[in-house]
């Protein structure tokens, strides 16, 4: 079968998923596959969408476990954090015990990635509009890291993240680093806009670590599933840890 080394289940919050799958297969070695279920986050980030997505994640996780997934990722930092970050380890453990498959959550993947990278001061870029800057800063503080700045690409609704040009990730990272030179990490938030290709370039040219949501999720899922080899081209995280 295609997933002869590992089969990764991912509960994908956006109601339409495009970029995540594309970039997953740029990163994954042969024999590692993705099982995907789309959830309910659409044009607005509402508690109702978060609740609905969380509930559907639990159902999807059961299905994925039944299909033979080696690990299931509960996607969506905002969805995860809506349950309370302190509750996430328990949610993962309980679900894992119930379905008989390892379970990780996006928020915890990102937290662990930043811990591995040894970062302290994080500047975040996202694409959900400046009105979400405070939420992103709070989410970073919740994970235990200092948020030194947040900026947003403008003009891109979540459903249209696939229309963000590939140059945007580097450009916005450079703007962030110029504005916040004290940052030791650029966080490209959300796993659903094109970022994977930019990670090495940002690290090399701007002299920072990069933690991108998609990269952190895939990295933690691989490592949890026993895919432990260093992977080149997508930052220190994949290469060194």
């Amino acid at each position, binding site marked *: *079968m*295609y*997933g002869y080394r590992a*089969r990764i*289940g991912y509960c994908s919050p956006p*109601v*339409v*998923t*495009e*970029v995540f*799958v*594309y970039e997953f*297969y740029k990163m994954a070695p042969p024999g590692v*596959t*993705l*099982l*995907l*279920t*789309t959830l309910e986050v*659409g*044009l607005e980030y509402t508690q109702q969408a978060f609740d609905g997505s969380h509930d559907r994640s639990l159902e*999807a996780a059961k*299905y*994925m476990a*039944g*299909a*033979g997934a080696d690990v299931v990722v509960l996607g969506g930092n905002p969805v995860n954090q809506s349950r309370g970050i302190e509750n996430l380890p328990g949610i993962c453990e309980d679900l894992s015990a119930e379905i008989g498959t390892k379970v990780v959550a996006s928020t915890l993947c990102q937290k662990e990635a930043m811990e591995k990278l040894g970062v302290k001061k994080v500047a975040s870029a996202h694409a959900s509009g400046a009105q979400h800057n405070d939420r992103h800063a709070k989410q970073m503080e919740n994970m235990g890291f200092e948020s030194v700045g947040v900026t947003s690409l403008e003009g891109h609704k979540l*459903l*249209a993240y*696939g*229309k*963000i*040009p*590939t*140059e945007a990730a*580097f450009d916005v990272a450079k703007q962030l680093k110029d504005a916040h030179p004290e940052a030791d990490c650029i966080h490209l938030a959300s796993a659903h806009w*094109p970022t994977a*290709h930019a990670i090495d370039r940002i690290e090399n040219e701007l002299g920072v670590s990069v933690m991108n949501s998609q990269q952190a999720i895939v990295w933690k899922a691989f490592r949890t599933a026993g895919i432990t080899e260093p992977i080149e081209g997508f930052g220190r995280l994949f290469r060194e840890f």
Partner: protein
Amino acid sequence: MNWGQIHGHRARIGYTVAAVTTEVYPIDWYRIVPDGVSLMMITLPLGDRSEKDVEKCYAISIEAAHTMARAGADLVLLGGLPINISKGDDTVEGLMAKLESEIGVKMSCSALAQVRAFAALGSKKVAVVHPFLADQNPRHERTIADFFGLDPVGVHAGGSSLVALGTLAPQCALDWGRAAMAAHPEADTIYFGCPHWTVIDAIQPLEDEFGVNVMTSLQAIAWDAMRQTGVEDRIDGFGRLLKEF
């Protein structure tokens, strides 16, 4: 890397996946399509194929077409032939036209993609291979005869289940295709139903070995999606359909 492009710089195809979770489909999609053709997916809660499930998925598919249009798809293709035709064989084209006028984006569906693929290949006598239990055989025979208007010369059931499709090896399609041809040598086309198991590596070997057409759901969907969006590339390795039409 062209830093000014989006991943789907040639075409972005919205596709409703008739499965709770999808694994094989995007892998095979990206093996077939050229660079710049991207796949946008919404998964549907098709569990045990009950009437209730199909009804629910039909309604969600319509809503999904609107969502895909808002997300900027160049074409929306509704997956799941049984869902497409669940309101009657003669309702499919009308639904596509209605949705197209509502959302302002080209529409297609699995059922129509396969109608066009059979027509392009000139198929008449069809041996069906599907991965499920034999209790699905009558449904497949009926669809070939009644919806596609072709002669179903026989059906081979692989004996697997929806939840186990990702565990099937590529060899299964090859073996089952050979078994279908051994049992029904009069077939001019082998048709592999369901796009969620790995079939594409069997297409060319079976066409070469038996001198027949091989048409698969996923191959037909990818072909139709590309041709409807102006991607006219002729693609080698996955059968006559993608190479000649």
